[in-house]
């Protein structure tokens, strides 16, 4: 007797002799709902609700479904057989019918929303390092590099966006860039794109830890000073007056600068450098002295000991953030993405207000450096390119972001507009901070990798900015941790949540990296430029160019100028990384 319970067809491994479908057991193609025949067959409907072919296919599909197990792909209708979305209706047993409104279940957004989403995703903490980057490379060269890097990364992003479409014979509608790398380069491509993507994510998480420690420190200090009515006039070297700008590390600011603060002080009192501002900054400087009201020096010392930016706060953050990292799903944190937008907008307003109050201080020395200014072209420019690579980095998720664009033919235009907006934002913030940095008393060298550090902790506007950013980062940090966890766990163990122990170990490793960096090397400029250049090497410069050249070659359309240009891109990417280490 035959076994009636067993499906009649054994599942067949599709792969060796068919070119359709993937050998992946997960059904990643989105199956559209197919119409259910109307049960009411009595009435002679005047108009056919579905075509006869669709009706027949429906009954065929029902029958085939009974012949094979439900999870089996052997007799599931291939995509070229299912009628187009215009012919698909969904019937309810009560008699109403509605059309499936096109698409694969992904909601389609108008262009403006897509542009905004891309802008929002790209705007990260690297905006805080742009003034420092411009300082490191020189004003003119910095602006030029910003524009050029924006264009270069835009071109590479377009290459990434178009790469799945040039793959023949395979349905790549749900592929992301790592899948494309896997197609062209095998498992090496898959693992290396994953690795470099991890570099960018973990680099961002380390930067977040350093910044969060910084902001938490300053917030706590502000509250403490406000509560205890401690007025710290000038513990740090800086300008005087109501718009105070400080230089936290006068003799270690910037690489290779050896003017000490004291010598700068003496030069200041007799200096006659011209400046464009109209407030007088030559006043008494208290360098290294602190004047406090009252005699709670010991309490302040105690406070300073237990509330230190590098020694204790990174550890306090563990208590707050490590539990958040262990959440199973990150959808709760995804709701707070609007905080990022608010923070960036507030930063722009803040920068504008500071610029209005401080005025412009620009001097153009083309190739020589003066005591307050730098030449317009500096050899440290690779540092800016490293920062900008991470600032303009969205290549690992651009395909997914663009998929929800309603008019796909406008993808190139929308992406270019988004990059233009991002570039303008960075340019605005960077140029304004750099230009309005009060240079006669302070040298441009004092611009910190995190420009908010140049404002004292008693500044109200900046305090609000720091609190906003702190809160925003606390909600983005678990999201980033979730992304890292999902990608690593699914590659290594095959599922998103293999077990609490595995996930916890990963989180401890990431948090430990952040804490160590915050403790020993809290220079976010360096962290950003190293991680940016490294992940940009693979995902921005090398892989998109290589893939484009290979696909052109396979089609026989590779021309010499195109090959030269793309090889040049690869060389630039390598030079970018090399420059970080040597400059």
């Amino acid at each position: 007797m035959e076994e009636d319970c067993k499906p009649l067809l054994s599942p067949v491994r599709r792969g060796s002799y068919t070119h359709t479908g993937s050998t992946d057991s997960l059904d990643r193609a989105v199956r559209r709902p197919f119409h259910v025949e109307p049960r009411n067959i009595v009435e002679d409907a005047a108009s056919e609700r579905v075509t006869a072919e669709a009706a027949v296919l429906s009954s065929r599909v029902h029958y085939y479904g009974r012949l094979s197990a439900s999870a089996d792909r052997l007799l599931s209708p291939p995509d070229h057989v299912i009628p187009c979305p215009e012919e698909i209706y969904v019937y309810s047993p009560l008699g109403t019918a509605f059309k499936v409104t096109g698409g694969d279940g992904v909601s389609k957004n108008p262009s403006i929303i897509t542009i905004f989403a891309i802008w929002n995703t790209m705007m990260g903490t690297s905006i805080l390092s742009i003034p420092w980057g411009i300082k490191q490379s020189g004003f003119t060269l910095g602006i030029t590099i910003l524009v050029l890097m924006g264009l270069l990364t835009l071109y590479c992003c377009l290459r990434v966006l178009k790469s799945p479409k040039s793959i023949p014979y395979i349905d790549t509608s749900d592929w992301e860039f790592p899948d494309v790398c896997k197609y062209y380069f095998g498992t090496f491509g898959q693992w290396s794109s994953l690795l470099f993507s991890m570099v960018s994510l973990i680099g961002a998480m380390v930067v977040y830890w350093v910044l969060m420690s910084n902001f938490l420190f300053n917030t706590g200090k502000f509250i403490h000073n406000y509560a205890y009515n401690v007025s710290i006039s000038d513990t740090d070297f800086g300008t005087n007056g109501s718009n105070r700008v400080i230089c936290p590390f006068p003799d270690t600011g910037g690489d290779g600068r050896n003017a000490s603060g004291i010598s700068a002080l003496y030069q200041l009192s007799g200096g006659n450098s011209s400046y464009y501002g109209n407030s007088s900054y030559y006043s008494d400087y208290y360098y290294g002295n602190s004047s406090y009201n009252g005699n709670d020096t010991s309490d302040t010392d105690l406070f300073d000991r237990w509330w230190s930016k590098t020694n204790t706060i990174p550890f306090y953050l563990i208590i707050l953030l490590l539990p958040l990292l262990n959440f199973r799903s990150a959808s709760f944190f995804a709701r707070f993405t609007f905080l990022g937008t608010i923070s960036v907008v507030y930063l722009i307003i803040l920068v504008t207000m500071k610029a209005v109050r401080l005025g412009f201080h620009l001097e153009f020395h083309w190739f020589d450096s003066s005591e307050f200014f730098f030449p317009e072209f500096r050899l440290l420019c690779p540092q800016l390119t490293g920062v900008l690579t991470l600032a303009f980095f969205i290549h690992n998720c651009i395909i997914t972001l663009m998929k929800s664009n309603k008019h796909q033919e406008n993808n190139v235009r929308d992406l270019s507009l988004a990059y233009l907006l991002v570039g303008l934002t960075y340019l605005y913030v960077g140029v304004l901070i750099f230009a309005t940095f009060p240079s006669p008393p302070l040298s441009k060298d004092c611009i910190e990798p995190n420009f908010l550090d140049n404002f004292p902790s008693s500044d109200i506007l900046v305090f609000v900015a720091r609190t906003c950013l702190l809160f925003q980062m606390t909600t983005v940090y678990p999201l980033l941790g979730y992304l890292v966890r999902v990608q690593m766990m699914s590659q290594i163990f095959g599922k998103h949540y293999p077990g609490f122990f595995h996930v916890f170990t990963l989180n401890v490793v990431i948090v430990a990296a952040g804490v160590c960096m915050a403790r020993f090397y809290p220079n976010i400029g360096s962290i950003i430029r190293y991680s940016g250049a490294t992940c940009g090497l693979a995902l921005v410069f090398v892989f998109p160019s290589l893939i484009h050249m290979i696909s052109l070659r396979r089609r026989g359309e590779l021309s010499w100028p195109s090959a030269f240009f793309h090889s040049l891109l690869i060389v630039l990417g390598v030079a970018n990384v090399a420059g970080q280490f040597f400059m």
Partner: protein
Amino acid sequence: MSSTAMKKKVLLMGKSGSGKTSMRSIIFANYIARDTRRLGATIDVEHSHVRFLGNLVLNLWDCGGQDTFMENYFTSQRDNIFRNVEVLIYVFDVESRELEKDMHYYQSCLEAILQNSPDAKVFCLVHKMDLVQEDQRDLIFKEREEDLRRLSRPLACTCFRTSIWDETLYKAWSSIVYQLIPNVQQLETNLRNFAQIIEADEVLLFERATFLVISHYQCKEQRDAHRFEKISNIIKQFKLSCSKLAASFQSMEVRNSNFAAFIDVFTSNTYVMVIMSDPSIPSAATLINIRNARKHFEKLERVDGPKHSLQMRMR
């Protein structure tokens, strides 16, 4: 005595992955007895057999590892397999990149058939046509058909193009079964008479095992050209569900204010479906008519039976 002499083989052959098992499942669902590896450990061939038309056994040959198969088994045991073959159905995958190899196997089969069963009917199915672009399908099929006709001489082969995703599979198998029923023209004329007598709108004759429509009569044009395939699939689904409950389907009546449909066992090989659009005729009348017609049609089949077996014994 006639039953054993009448048992003939239907060979379903083709390269591995060409779609034989899918076809077999779709057409012959629920009547499959697995007989795997009957021929020993050295040869990796999967065998199944299905009975249909009462006295025909469909022998499914799944040709696996090509070269070993051809070299060893095909030469040593071919007489056993290729004797008493009534029908050879050979399946070609239209997407196959090894056309030369396919033709080579096909010709080896034909040689064996010529030697052992020269009267066998040969059908060639060019399968998976849905993977070809619609505007090229006719052209590609015509090319293949010419090649196959040429290669099959002196045997005559009938070619069909099929895909499980459209009605061509169904039509091809219906045509094949149609040619296998011994007295099908006579059945058709009698069916028409029967339908006109009982004033039916449409009468369908299904083969018993597969529910393939082998003959039909309609008094006026119907709207849905795909109705045969739909009915076939629906009844096969229903039979599958019944068998899951260890029940077997025998007859069905569907009635509403506009029509009445009757599906019932007819002869030993067939089922009949009668559709009456006059609701005033009571069901009992139609059922009596069907029962009386059954006796008549069985006589038809039995009349030709002994003649056929006589021919058999003389061979």
